[in-house]
């Protein structure tokens, strides 16, 4: 089987292989496995590791502390001075 004439020129061959490769990557990224590349994590303690903390259920805390009426009724801190000159 004879090869297409276009492959007689090595530059044309290179361009065609490149175009096919880019098209294949595009089909994979957007068609077969869409999404962003895997997240990178900041090094912690010398190792790369994901955010490993689980949520501690604090729904009771949130229920009160996001409620303006409840917090406004609190007397906590009312006897504190508005600001103190530290001399600093």
């Amino acid at each position, binding site marked *: 089987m004879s090869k297409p004439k276009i492959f007689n020129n090595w530059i044309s061959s290179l361009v065609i292989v490149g175009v096919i490769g880019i098209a294949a990557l595009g089909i994979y990224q957007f068609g077969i496995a869409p999404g962003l590349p895997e997240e990178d994590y900041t090094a912690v303690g010398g190792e790369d590791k994901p955010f490993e903390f689980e949520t501690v259920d604090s729904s009771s*805390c949130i229920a009160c*502390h996001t409620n303006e009426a409840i917090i406004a009724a609190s007397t906590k801190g009312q006897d504190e001075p508005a*600001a*103190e000159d530290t001399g600093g």
Partner: protein
Amino acid sequence: MFLVSQEFVESTHGGLGCIACHGGENVPDQAAAHAGMDSYPSRDFEANCGACHANVTGDYATSIHYNLHGMANGLIEFTDVSSLSDSPHHEEVFDNDCYKCHATCGDCHVSRAKNFSEGLVDQHNFLGTPSMEENCYACHNARNAGEYMGLVGFGGDVHYEKGMTCMDCHPKSNFHGDSSIEVSYNMWEEDLPSCLDCHEDKDPEVATDVEHKVHGDSLSCQVCHAQANNNCFECHLDEKADGSGLGSSSEKKIMFRVGYNPLVSEERPYKYVTLRHVPGQENMLEVVGDNLMPKYNTKTNWKYSPTHNIQKSTFQNESCESCHENTKIWLSEKDFRETDSTLNETLIPDLPPPLQ
């Protein structure tokens, strides 16, 4: 005061759940919910913050915002001890008065400082860049931050008026610490900002204008461009009226004085600098013991002041005469008090040469 926003609840830190950092119990009863809770989790910053932010917490013990070595060493230099722990009296003074400015992560990134009525800056949202008004000013109100914002003295700083904050000039290491730096006395060994970092064309070696060329390295930038600053005299430590510990008080005076540089260094080779009188007198600690400042006269009370209220035009740079022939701005014996260190005399400058 302790209202938490929905935005925080949905944030990464909020997603951990309040109890993850503060402890306590997830129950509806208020008393039971708060039992054993820690309102100040960043006190243990290595455990609570370091799990994710080890790159910051690893150095934080070297930060003078945390260890207050600048204040501690400033106190030690008047004493005959080499460490506060060697003297219960000095340690008591430091712990009762100076230590209230000690800060950890939450004091800047979440809350207002304890001495600034506490409370949250922004409904518990974590501020990557702290609030200059509610965090920096909380501790530095009487001098640099107050002067910078125009709240102390006669006018603010041109950089503040143009929208710049403390963090625009000071590198992160000034706040978070840098374990590669040995802080022997105060923060002068830190990587501090320099006016020439931005105003390169005013470096005397390359400046083309006569004012910057002729004065060379003789004057610090503040001598011409700072305004009057806040000076404290006659500081004394006493029991607080409410019995809650020790508190200091002093007399304040807005002044502008130029004298010899008490701290000549390679970075600050200037002969003349703006000075600031810092609080202190020989018997200021008598409430806790006698003769606690035996080396009082080996240090000056007038200190190098990188005054933070810069303006391009000031009363002393209005004309050549307004500085050279203005004897009021030069430190003199008239400025000294009986309670001052005798070493202050070494800072009285020769008056500038008369104009031709």
